[in-house]
């Protein structure tokens, strides 16, 4: 049978991809702009004999995720920024207990309750481990509805592979917009989970806990976890390149901002600016080496993000002061391509990059 594309809202595409990835249980609590995801799963999960549960709070939901993951289930929760803050303690617990789970954050503007507008202001929280303790988890940042579906599917496989939570980081616009999507058909292969608390019949009982009281115990536990996260950092760096080969100015942008940046880059090329895009897909692990490599050829970087400047710190670490790195920032508004183009023009002029001033005059005439 030929697979057919369907037109889906981002939030619903995540839900359907999760079902097709063999998600066995979803625990959540509604919040705009991701409520269509639990709404979709509330209808679909019973159809496939899986569990959908609207918890009494975000804290309850993430604790249910901990329980189900401990019992060996493929499990997911989703929320938007303020709700994800509430889940941070649970995410720290999942990481500390080596538990696989998929967490979706469809970001909205903060701080506090903020609003319901799209934003990318949770970059620090997502990539630094928003809860207490020293931990890491994969952060995947899709930029289209197709990628939302693909990365959701893959997140389940990666969570199982590394026994670690995986975060999908989108924003309100990605959650709400519709694009054609080709949905995955088969779930990733099931992995053995001999550690799961499935009832200790004819075997020793398994324990899942995060408390390590012994003098050396906690140090060793952290060292072992660190090895796992080093392995993820080695194996799971993901990024996309667009018009980078001859780029003098490199935009670094993720998610919805990267889509607008692509358009701005095409517009910049029409006025003689050699611009290109490096789009991190994994925000942790961050494509540090790839950016360092590009920095050897480029004259300037422009980081485009919908926050006050968070990823720019990782870009500055990666470029090591070799080239100027500037910020284009909107916080709770998706920028438009023209605004980014203006920043590109200004940066090109100030850093001595090629720019066709005659073409710009013609354009504005």
């Amino acid at each position, binding site marked *: 049978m030929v697979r057919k594309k369907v037109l889906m809202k981002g939030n619903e595409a995540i839900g359907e991809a999760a079902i097709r990835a063999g998600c066995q249980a979803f625990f959540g609590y509604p919040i705009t702009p991701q409520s269509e995801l639990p709404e979709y799963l509330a209808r679909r999960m019973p159809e496939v004999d899986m569990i959908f549960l609207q918890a009494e709070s975000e804290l309850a939901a993430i604790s249910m995720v901990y329980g189900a993951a401990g019992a060996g289930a493929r499990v997911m929760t989703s929320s938007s920024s303020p709700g994800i803050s509430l889940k941070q303690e649970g995410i720290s617990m999942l990481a500390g207990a080596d538990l696989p789970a998929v967490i979706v954050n469809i970001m909205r503007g903060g701080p506090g309750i903020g609003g*319901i507008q799209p934003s990318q202001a949770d970059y620090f929280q997502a990539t630094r481990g928003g809860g207490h303790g020293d931990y890491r988890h994969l952060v995947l940042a899709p930029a289209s509805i197709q990628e939302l579906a693909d990365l959701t599917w893959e997140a389940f496989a990666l969570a199982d592979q590394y026994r670690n939570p995986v975060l999908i980081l989108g924003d309100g616009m990605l959650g709400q917009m519709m694009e054609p999507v080709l949905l995955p058909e088969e779930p990733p292969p099931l992995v053995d989970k001999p550690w799961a608390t499935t009832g200790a019949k004819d075997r020793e009982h398994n324990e899942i806990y995060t408390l390590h009281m012994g003098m050396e115990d906690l140090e060793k536990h952290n060292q072992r976890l660190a090895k796992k996260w080093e392995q993820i950092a080695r194996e799971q760096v993901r990024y996309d390149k667009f018009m980078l080969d001859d780029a003098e100015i490199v935009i670094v942008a993720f998610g919805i901002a990267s889509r607008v940046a692509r358009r701005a880059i095409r517009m910049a090329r029409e006025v003689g600016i050699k611009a290109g895009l490096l789009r991190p897909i994994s925000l942790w692990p961050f494509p540090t080496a790839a950016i360092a490599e590009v920095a050897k050829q480029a004259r300037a970087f422009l980081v485009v993000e919908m926050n006050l400047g968070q990823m720019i710190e990782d870009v500055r670490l990666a470029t090591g002061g070799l080239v100027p790195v500037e910020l284009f920032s909107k916080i709770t508004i998706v920028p438009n391509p023209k605004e980014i183009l203006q920043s590109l023009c200004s940066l090109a002029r100030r850093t001595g990059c090629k720019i066709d001033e005659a073409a710009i005059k013609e354009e504005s005439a």
Partner: protein
Amino acid sequence: MDKKREREIRTLLLAGFGGQGIISMGQFLAYAGMLEEREVCFVPAYGPEMRGGTANCLITIDEQQIDSPIFEQPDVAVVMNLPSFNRFEYQVRSKGLLLVNSSLVNQPVQRQDIEAYSIPVNELASSLGNIKVANVVMIGALLELTGIIQAESIIDSMRSTFSDSKHNLLALNRKALEKGAEYVRYLSSKQRLAV
């Protein structure tokens, strides 16, 4: 409208008040574009501005992969009520197209650098016996003027998205598309006579 203009149309903005079927219009166009194997992207305005009673959405239909889902100056704007007209008349790109629901907008278009059509879609829909298809009459006009999508693809998109109990409405929708197309053909011939 010549073929060249036709190709240049990729971005559309649709606006009106809640209940006029603005979001449905956008979804029919995006779905139909997908059925024609084009790249499509549909962005609804959500949030505070929706709570103000206006609804609008952005649609891109392209042959190539779509970069930005949002844009500042659409190639085409369809305004279904007066607040939308006031807000979006000046957003249409120069030499772009503005379609106005003259049933609810009684002000003249000021811009001289765009092509504008006033279409009384509420009355045209009422003449078919159902004012609810005013949005589909407008799609009919849009397709006639731009050729951006085949009318049959819109019907196919309705067939795919309507529940079975609503399939009896397909014939009415087909008539509504034809009504809108017919009206702008009539407008164009009138313009030719005036010249």
